[in-house]
């Protein structure tokens, strides 16, 4: 398993809850454990939803960085569970 040196980028700006989570979920399903994804959002709700989604699906939030009207959530993709039910 390799780790992406450069985070993949996902533009979730202008999307309202729960779309930033859905877009994140749909991107992560095609990524490998250890890969990094940076999600750019403008809905403040995503600041709570994406970390919640990561907690229940075994991914790790690395950083939440602030911009003027948007923010970026960086996460590391976790391992799939024993049933093979990844995020």
């Amino acid at each position, binding site marked *: 398993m390799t780790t992406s040196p450069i985070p993949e980028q996902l533009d979730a700006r202008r999307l*309202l*809850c729960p*779309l930033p989570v859905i877009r994140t979920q749909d991107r992560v399903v095609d990524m490998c454990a250890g890969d990094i994804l940076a999600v750019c959002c403008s809905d403040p709700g995503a*600041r*709570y939803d994406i970390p*919640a989604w990561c*907690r*229940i699906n075994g991914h790790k939030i690395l950083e939440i960085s602030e911009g003027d009207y948007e923010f970026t959530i960086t996460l590391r993709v976790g391992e799939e569970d024993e049933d093979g039910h990844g995020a």
Partner: protein
Amino acid sequence: MMAKAKAVALISGGLDSLLAARVVMGQDVHVEGINFFTGFCVEGHTHAIRKRDSEKPKRNNALWVAEQLGIKLHIIDVVEEYKDVLLNPKHGYGANLNPCLDCKGFMVRKADEWATAHGFDFIFSGEVIGQRPMSQRRDTMPVVARESGAGERLLRPLCAKLLPPTLAETSGWVDREQLHDFSGRSRKPQMALAEEYGFTEYAQPAGGCCFLTNREYSSKLTDLWCAQGHREYELDDLLLLKVGRHLRPRPNFKLILGREEGENNYLRGYCRQFSHLHVLSHRGPLGLIDGPANRDDLLLAARLMARFCQGRDAEQVEIEVHERKGETWTATVKPMTAAEVLPEWYV
């Protein structure tokens, strides 16, 4: 030894689906949640973008429920497929544009398809007989099971004892005796069960979990359809209906005004797609023009917008107009009086 059964829970984020999932989990069944995004879902923090609502919990209730239960939640985007449910409901609408019975059948069908595709044995929901006037009546619950195609793969743990046994019960995956017989609009049995399980906090949706049950939202959607001359819509249309103050002073265009800083920030993301206005001389909202507008329309919009800025009582207000085609110019206008803003302009 019998393999552990696997079930998919329809999770709305409310108390009933929380309890139904907890009941089934208590019977040693592997449970994962599913939640559908139609574009019309009301969330605890749908208005998180409004800073004045910042004291309210900013959470997606379905995610929160899943976290309380310790289960995975799969959120599925059904915006495109849902259009047919909204536009052509076989069972008609409720008090507003809510096609509740068709909606329930659609979601159960999608959950059943997802469960089958992912190797789950059955699905279940938090429905309670008599809880809702359209989709949760004794006579309509079999309709949902039948028309969704789920049939006996659909279990309703909170009222199962009042219904014929389903596959989960006849297969021995769950013990029918440990299920419930809740009915009616009273929430007391659910609250008692919540207390039994130690759930002290849960969402209390007032008016349901869908914007289509809301009269004001339905009115905005109807206005959109009338203005465009057809009932098609895109996701951006739905998102914008949830944000800002909407006024239609002329049939050909609508002015969308941010009501506070959070909404202005959100609307700013649409500036490349829409002609837009902002106040130069005073503090005020950002305004988007939805629809084709000529210079006279834009001047009218500027006067109207000036009414909603801090210069509403000033002789003149300067407003910068950014036309979608690229031209930018400044309008110096006299704000409309309160009497000039006609009540029927409010969408």
